[in-house]
């Protein structure tokens, strides 16, 4: 698979390490009343779709950036790549 890095251009997937579902960016509030249940769901449960899936890839052998890659899990086709930082900011995380 070739991952089209937003800053560095096309890179072989073997340069990257996979973390999992991009929902991991959206960490629950640890001070919420139901934090225990929310963290259980956050850490352990997955949608695991057959089709379009947003996921986190770490460019470990490159610039060490985190990417959000949108990929089809049935065909391995990569539909979009974004910096995880930009995705997190759009969600209101960080500065």
């Amino acid at each position: 698979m070739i991952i089209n890095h937003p800053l560095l251009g096309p890179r072989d997937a073997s340069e990257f390490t996979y973390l999992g579902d991009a929902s991991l960016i959206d960490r629950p509030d640890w001070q919420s009343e139901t934090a225990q249940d929310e963290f259980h769901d956050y850490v352990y449960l997955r949608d695991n779709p057959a089709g379009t899936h947003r996921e986190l890839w770490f460019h470990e052998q490159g610039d060490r950036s985190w990417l959000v890659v949108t990929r089809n899990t049935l065909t391995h086709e990569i539909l979009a790549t974004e910096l995880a930082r930009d995705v997190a900011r759009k969600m209101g995380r960080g500065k």
Partner: protein
Amino acid sequence: MRYSALAILRQVLNGHRGWGPAWRDPEPQSDYDFIVIGGGGHGLATAYYLAKEHGAARIAVLEKGWIGGGNVGRNTTIIRANYLLDGNQPFYELSLKLWENLEQDLNYNAMVSQRGILNLCHTDSQRDAYRRRGNAMMFTDSGAELLDAEGVRAMYPFLNFDNARFPILGGLLHRRGGTARHDGVAWGYARAADQRGVDIIQNCEVTGFRIENGKVLGVETTRGYIGAKKVGVAVAGSSGRVMGQAGMRLPIESHVLQAFVSEGLKPVLDGVITYGAGHFYISQSDKGGLVFGGDIDGYNTYAQRGNLPVVEDVVEGGMAVMPMIGRTRLLRMWGGVMDMSMDGSPFIDHTGIEGLYFNGGWCYGGFKATPASGFCFAHLMATDRPHEVATGYRLDRFKTGRMIDERGAGAQPNLH
């Protein structure tokens, strides 16, 4: 028809014109007592033991494709009981005991061959860990022997003992482990279940569940609605998809594991060897092909094929421990979709929806578990209580802190 030497002789005399189909091809009835979704090894074994051990009647197995076309036909056929933890080892020992009597029980040649499994070790700490594992295995009478380097050399002189990074110091030998013919297992269970009245319905994909007031009433399929008192799901690889139809999220990601077969060779390797340091395992099939594999590809996928980086990685691992395989040609490779669970251990449990049961999360160890998985799942479905060797395989174990973390890799499925 019962298979025997006499039956073969009779067929030889009449030109093999008398063999009938191994199982019927029935139309689905309007309702059943038990429906098992998934006609793989685990689903067929579940239906078989429901009929045999619990005297259940009116059982159907629903398979979206054909028998033997899923994960049971896409693995490396190894059977073993060399686990460490309490939640696992007694379960896999039960499985091995069932394997040992499987062919007589099913009246089917599944080519079960206890050729022995050798786990190589390369460091002092790994040897200590294997000594401990061997002791744990002996608690369940699975049998384990710790070999030194000379002991390994006497068995397999062709291994690379002097690898600079991972010299072979010895190994843990599990003589009762071995291989079985994967298709034969599926066909044997299908035939034996059919003979006990189980309806095996192929080309019948489940497209939804009918659930009212927290109770399952039946399933929607491509061949119409089928009612059921109890529904068991055993569709490893597709668990996320099927249980999603019942509104459940699971502690599972689907990943692909690739496996490889070389061209047919004369007998060279009579057992199974695992090379943990390089993530590689290998055996030789009765037809002569070297069957081997390594790591999963490590990202979510439902495509039953992998990618090249892992092919290179596996082949490098193989060359490192067994240099002579560099002289053989790779005949074919394939990928199977694995339910990778969050602690690397499976689930056999109620779902919280009355009458709906779940069996999955086998990671890449489902084949060896086939008999015990079916046995314990049938026990759960028939009695509503978990079998005593499968009490740890609960869906809520992450909530209650009772993970069975055999590998100690934590909650990241692609590391198991």
